[in-house]
Each structure stands twice: as C-alpha cells, then as structure tokens.
C-alpha cells in the first residue's frame, strides 16, 4: 500500500484507532467524561481526515474499498450523526448507574461499520461493515439492561437482523458460485456470462435484496421496526434510524451502480413496487399509533419508501446523476431531522423509569411548559412532513424533481398520497403539544442540561439552513457526483 492509499483510508484508520484507544482507556481508568471526550475527539478527527482523503479521491484502495467523494460525504455525515448521538446520550448515561463507558465504544464501532459500508466496493467489505455496525447496534439497543423494554427490543432485533444477515450472506454465496467473483464491478460483468442458469441468480438476488431490505425496513420486511424503535433508548433509536439505514442504502446504491444492475429492469421495478408499499403502508400504519416513537418508526418506513424512488429514476442513465444527488441530499436532510426528533424525545421523559415509552399525552401542552423544546420539535416534525423552509421540503422537492425527470407517475402518485396522509399524524403530535394547560394534567418535568439544548438548537439550525439556503450543499453534491 502506498501513502496515498493510507491517506484515502484515513477516516477508517482514525475511527479504528480511536476505538482501540477508548478500549484501552476503559481497561485502565473508568471515567465517563474522559471516554465521551475521546469518543468526540475520534469522531472529529475522522471527519476532519475526510478532507485529507478528499485530496486523493477518487482512489480504489485494494479491491475491497474505494475512497470517492460519495463515500467521504457519508463518512462525514456518519461521524457528525454519531457525535450528536453521543452528546444527546450523555444525560441518558448519567442516570444509568454502572459502566456507561462501553456505550461510547460501541457507538464508535458502529460508526466504523457504517463508514466501511460507505467505502465498500466488494461483497466482503459490505458484509464486514454490515456486521460490525449491526452487532454493535444490538448491544447499544439493550444498553439500559435493567429495563425490560430495551432488552425485548434488542432480542427481537438480534434474532431478526441475524437472520437477515444470514440470508444476505447466502445470497452472496450463490452469486459467487454463479459468477466466481465478489467485486461489484466484476460481478456485474460476469452476471451476463453466468452459466448456472437464471434460477440461481434469481434466488441469489432475492436473498441479497431481502436481507438488505430488512435492514432498511422496507415493507414487507418492516415488522421489527416499531418494536425496536419503541424499546431502544431514544438516542440509539435516532442513530439506528439514520446512520444504519443511510449506510445500507449507500452500499446498496453502490452495488447497483457499480454492477450496473439497473439494466435488469424487473429487479428495479420490484424496488419501485416496494417503494410504493413502504410509502403507503408506513404512512397508513402510523395513523394508528399513539406512541410517538412508533409514529416515527412508521414514518421512517415511509421515508425509506420515498428514498427508494430514486432506484427507478436510475433506470435512465441520463437521470442517474440527479437521482443519486437527490438520494444523498435526502439522506442528509433525513439524518439531521430524525436525530433531532429523537434527541428531543430523550428530554421529554427524562428521569422516569419508563422513559423509553413516549406517548402522545406526554407531549400534551409542551408548547406552554417547554416552549423551546416544543418549538424545536415542531420544526423537526414539519421537516419530516416536508413543509417548506425546512430541509425535509427541499429533500422531497429533489425526489419529486428526479421522479418527474424520469416520468414515473405511479411512484409520484404514491408519494403525494403518502405525504398527504403523513401530514395527519405529524400534525397530531403538534396538536397535542399546543393543547392548553386546562386540557391536560401533565406534571412531568422535562429536564436536560444546556448542553443537550445547545445540540438540539444546532440540529434545528442545520435543518432550517438546509431548507432556506440549500444552494451550497446542492452545488457541492452536483460537483462531486
């Protein structure tokens, strides 16, 4: 390996090194503040080293990974999301009696897995990243191990996600048997010459796709989502809903792009069909919920549905640039918004034994009890609903533009219908927040130090900035893709 290769991999090296350092530190000296600081420092260094890596990008480093601008954008995004998660979890961990240090270690490892996924151009790297990310997440979901809800959620996630990983692996094994290669690009070339017959390829594609769709919680592989979101600590839910999904999405997108799977029209059309199912089912099921975390879980299913629209747009090579750009912008906007939303939920039930469960009545009258918190949550919800002046609107506009450029009217109809349904449940939360003091008897005190408020304000600032002045990011994405 040359110096340039190392430079290109610097973000991964920084994350791995940071994780090792944190591990050693925990072995010798247990100190939450120190661990948090080291975790944040590692993430900052990793994000910063993306700048160095950008100087040599795009560069193929070993057959496994490629450092291109797309990968680096996602590395920065994942590091930022992880840093926000770490900061938002601090108060969670403070009330947690023993050994909160490993939490931050797991967070770093999970971020490393996500970044590897963003770099992956080989099935081995994809599987490694996926497993590193998922296994850390199982433990993160179960971290408050004394309450029953997180344990239940983690068990569910472990069993189902393990099965999904195994399915994906089996699918890749079949692909290898048929083509003799695991590199994305070579895989695409060999597919046309495969000799084992179409049945094997069909089964392989179905298994790979089903496994990854499970991680993305695309309908009909979404059944785990509400339970896991509901049970997991809110900051972890935010991380799970954004980083793990964005990482799998970018890996899937790269697999399709590098292997040029878009020429298999039927495969892409199935993606489109699942997108429609996700948009409609996610939004419809969210209507029935009274638990805000479950509402957000179903809403995240719908959002993945909106995002999958870009796969259909990619069929036409001329629109591929816009489609990928739309997907990246959407993921950035969605990550900022979702982390902010879950971060704010962490503050609502702070100090209660059942704090994982945030019901609608818990936010009743929040606007009068905690105006700042409610205002921030309002912006996050409006962004999820795709109302102008927020990042969510620009993101939805991007997807609509991409779909219009490809003329996918059925998908657009589902998108409009889904968004219209979605408005109802987001507004329901808003309505509960604005209920007058005489209409509710909420005595719950919401707490959270100034730090947590500052990070929430920062995230909301990002959402508004991306909604009001999106041009710099758009221009940057257009220039690199």
């Amino acid at each position, binding site marked *: 390996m040359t110096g340039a290769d190392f430079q290109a991999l610097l973000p991964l090296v920084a994350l791995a090194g940071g994780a090792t350092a944190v591990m050693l530190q925990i072995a010798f000296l247990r100190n939450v503040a120190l661990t948090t600081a080291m975790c944040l420092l590692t993430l900052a260094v990793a994000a910063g080293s993306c700048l160095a890596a950008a100087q040599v990008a795009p560069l193929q480093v070993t057959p496994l990974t490629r450092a291109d601008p797309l990968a680096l954008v996602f590395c920065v995004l994942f590091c930022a999301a992880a840093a926000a998660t770490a900061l938002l979890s601090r108060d969670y961990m403070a009330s947690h009696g023993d050994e909160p240090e490993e939490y931050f270690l797991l967070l770093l490892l999970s971020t490393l897995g996500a970044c590897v996924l963003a770099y992956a151009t080989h099935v081995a790297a994809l599987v490694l990243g996926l497993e590193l990310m998922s296994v850390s997440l199982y433990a993160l979901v179960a971290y408050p191990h004394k309450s029953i809800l997180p344990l239940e959620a983690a068990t569910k996630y472990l069993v189902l996600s393990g099965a999904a990983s195994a399915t994906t692996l089996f699918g890749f094994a079949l692909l290898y048997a048929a083509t003799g290669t695991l590199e994305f690009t070579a895989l695409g070339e060999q597919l046309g010459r495969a000799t084992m017959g179409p049945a094997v390829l069909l089964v392989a594609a179905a298994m790979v796709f089903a496994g990854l769709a499970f991680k993305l919680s695309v309908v009909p592989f979404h059944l785990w989502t509400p339970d896991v979101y509901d049970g997991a600590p809110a900051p972890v839910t935010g991380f799970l809903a954004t980083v793990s999904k964005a990482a799998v999405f970018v890996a899937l997108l790269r697999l399709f792009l590098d292997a040029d799977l878009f020429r298999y029209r039927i495969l892409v059309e199935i993606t489109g069909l699942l997108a429609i199912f996700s948009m409609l089912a996610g939004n419809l099921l969210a209507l029935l919920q009274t638990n805000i975390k479950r509402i957000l879980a179903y809403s995240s299913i719908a959002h993945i549905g909106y995002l999958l629209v870009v796969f259909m747009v990619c069929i036409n090579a001329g629109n591929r640039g816009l489609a990928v750009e739309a997907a990246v912008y959407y993921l950035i906007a969605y990550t900022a918004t979702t982390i902010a939303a879950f971060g704010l939920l962490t503050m609502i039930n702070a100090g209660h034994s059942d704090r994982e469960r945030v019901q609608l009545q818990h936010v009743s009258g929040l606007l*009068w009890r905690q105006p700042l918190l409610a205002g921030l949550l309002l912006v996050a919800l*409006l962004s999820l609903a795709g*109302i*102008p*002046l927020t990042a969510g*609107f620009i993101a939805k*506009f991007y997807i*609509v*533009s991409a779909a*219009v*450029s490809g003329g996918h009217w059925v998908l*657009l109809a589902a998108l*409009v219908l889904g*968004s*219209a349904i979605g*408005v*109802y449940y987001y*507004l*329901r939360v*808003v*309505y509960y927040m*604005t209920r*007058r003091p005489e209409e509710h008897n909420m005595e719950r005190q919401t707490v959270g130090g100034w730090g947590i408020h500052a990070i929430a304000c920062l995230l909301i600032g990002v959402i508004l900035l991306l909604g009001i002045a*999106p*041009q710099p990011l*758009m*221009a940057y994405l*257009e220039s690199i893709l």
Partner: protein
Amino acid sequence: MSLVVLILLLLVGGLVAWQAERLDTNLPRWVALASVGAALLYLITIVARLPAEHFSLVPEAQDGTTWLLHLKLAWIPRFGIALELAMDGLSLLLLALTLLLGLVAVAASWSEIDFKPGLFQANLLWTLAGVCGVFLALDLFLFFLFWEVMLIPMYLLIAIWGHENRAYAAMKFFIFTQASGLLMLLAIVVLAWQGLAQNGSLSFSYFDLLGLPLDGRLAWWTMLGFFLAFTVKLPAFPFHTWLPDAHTQAPTAGSVLLAGILLKTGAYGLLRFCIPLFPEASLHLAPAAMALGLAGIVYGALLAFAQSDFKRLVAYSSVSHMGFVLLGLYAWNSLALQGAVMQMVAHGVSTAALFMLAGALQQRLHTRDMARMGGLWHQAPRMGACAMFFAVASLGLPGLGNFVAEILVLLGLFAVQPWLAAIAALGLITAAIYALWMVQQAFQGTPDEQRRMEDFGVREMAAMAAMMLALLWLGLYPQPVLDLAQPVLDSLQGLSGSGL
C-alpha cells in the same frame, strides 16, 4: 428591495409581538397594530413614489421590467430558482386588501384573545406575511413556498385559539390544502422540466414558463394540478367541505383572515397562474369550471339558508359568493374578469365584517346559535345596524361593492353563456333570502329580557365604519379599482391569445 421590506416588516413584527408578551399582555396587540399599520403606510409611500402613468401601462409577459415593481435575486441557481417578487395593479389591490383586513383582524382579536396574546398576534402577522408573499411571488417555487408557509400559522390560530371542535377543523383545513398543494408542487415541477426540455435551461420563473408549448394531455393534467390546489382554497363545490368547519371553529380574527384574504389567494392563483399558463387546457375546462361555480352558488346558498349557526351561515354564503368569482374567471372576458376582481375585494370586506360581528356576538352571548339570539336590535342597536348593512351588502344591494361585482360577472357571463348567467342570477335571490333570514333570526323578534349585553364600542365601530366606507366607495365609485386592474387583465387576456 421594497417588496422584501414589506414582508419582513410583518415577519419581524410577529417576532417582536411574540416576545413583547413577556413585558405586558397588552403590548403584543399594539405591536401587531403598529406593524400592520407600518406595512400599510410603507406600501402607500412606495406606491405614491411611482409615476402615475405606470399604472395605466399594460405589463408585459416577457419580463418584469414593465411591472410596477420587480425584484429578482438568485436563490437556488442549481434548479434555476430565484427570489422573484413583482407587483402589478392586481397584486397592489390584493395587498391593500390584505393589510386593511389585517388591521381589522387585530382589532377583532383585541379583547377576545386572553390566552397567550403574544403568540396569537405573531401567528396573525406571519399569516399576513405569507399571504403578501403569495400575492407577490412570481417564481413558482417561491409561490409554492409562501402558499404552504401561510398555512402553518393559520393552522396554529385555529388549533390553539379556536372553538370547541378546533382540532378537527384545523386538521381538515390543513390536510385539504396540503394535499392539493402537493399536486400543485408536482405540476410546478413538471412544468419546469418541460421548460428545461424546450428552453434548454431550468427555470421556475413565471415569465420563462408562460407561453410554453405543451403537449395536450400533459398540459391538461398539469393544469389540473394547479386548478385543484386553487379551487380547494377558493373553495369551489365540491371541495368546500373544509371551509364551514374551519371558519366556524376559528377565532374571530382567524375567520376574518380566512374569509377575507386566504380564499382570495385561490382566486388569485387561478387568474395569475392557472389560466395564463395553460390557456388551451383551461378552454377545455371552462364549461366544467363554470358548472362548478354555478353549483357552488346554488348549493352554498341553499346550505346557508339551512344553518342555525351564525358563523356557519356566513361560511356557506362565502361558498356561494366565491362561485361568482369562478364563473367570472372562466367566462374570461373583460367585464367578467373585472367582476371577479371586484368580487374578491368586496366579498373580502363584507364577509370579514360579518365574521367580526359573529365573533362579537359569540363573545357576548357565548353561543353562535341564532335560535338563542333574537331581538338583539333592541339591546345592541349599533350591532344591529352594522349587521343589517353588511347583510344587504352581501345580498348585493345596488350602491354597495358586491352589487357591482356580481352584476359585472353576470353581464360578462351573459355574453358567453346566457343560460348559465340566468341560473347564476338566482344566486342574487337566494342570497337575499338567507341574508335577511339571518338578520331576522338574530336581531329581530322579542328580546330575552334576562339578557344584558354590551353594544359595539369605539374600537369595533371604527373597524366597522372603515369597512362600510370601503363598500360604499366600491359600490358608488368603483372606477379607480377597475382602472387599476384593467391593464393587468388586458395583459393576462393577451396571453391566452383569442381568449377562452
């Protein structure tokens, strides 16, 4: 820049009013009054500075240079989106209406709102800012942004300060407008992409998208996206069902804004965007649109007569009156268009006054049920006289603005569709029935002796007097308004070639 300042005055005024509550509960009201007043004065000064001959110039469709005011700043060049605001006679008329009714709304909420008056006035001002933006934006993306943004403060006004069934009403209002708005967004994007295919560059500017040659089917569907969004807002039959709920449940100031100006954004959208952008598709739609207008006039009037709730009656009467606007727009000749514009202004004023009355009654009697009123004239003669005045204005008494509007629409329509005009004229009779029925129920008959109620005070009479004067002016000397709108209407008619 002056147009940006106008919108900023309202936005910043809202922020100040919101925070002013910390100092004193009365301060937000003064801040709101001052900020709407300042915006109105500012509008007058910038208009007064323009040379008089500008107002008779026909604005051109190629670019904004011949408009009264025009501003274009790059905003999102990636998609060719600009911060493009422009004002012509039509926008000026509607802006003036918006700000005047804004003053009325502040006056109407003065003593009604005790709960968090700061946030209330802030939402009121932000709604006004959004509406001003809608009337000024000429970039379709920016137009959609204002279109959506004005909904949120309005939603909060209904959801927080509304009456007993406010959650349902606010939600219904928002979902109807948002769902139809999404279709419009889709139509806007389709239109811009057609522009890209034909002009080679992506732009959302009104001027770049006007006169785009479109394939018939595509033009039809795209036009429907705009048409739906605007007719839901107007509202036209059968998309009117959100209106009675929203108007009835909203606080008085909210009803004044909704009926007075938010409905006009729908009519404005049809006039400015839907018909000029798709002249041929609109031609095909015209019979159906006129039928919807007619159905609205008759159906709204029938339902208005069947109401026992004062506010619901006024709300259904709006459906009926906005039917005339739809008829006038799709008749698409000078007379009918003048009538439609006149109806927007006159209906805005008369309905705002009626909702203010309804609000005052509810505040005093704690009911909107007309069966529990009766004989109020004896106890509150000033209110009775005001109610009578605006009821006859609403039924189209000659000498008041609404008469001029409706007669112009009917005259214009008669030239195109005599039979439709004949049926639409029935609307004048039914309006007389429900308007007089309302006065009879609430204000005449034997009064309840137990009831003690306060008549209108100085503040309320001032607002009422201003609106009476406006209606008298519109009814007796409508020429200045017609002159202001005429060049714009000529220009818009020029865009559709031979006309609809």
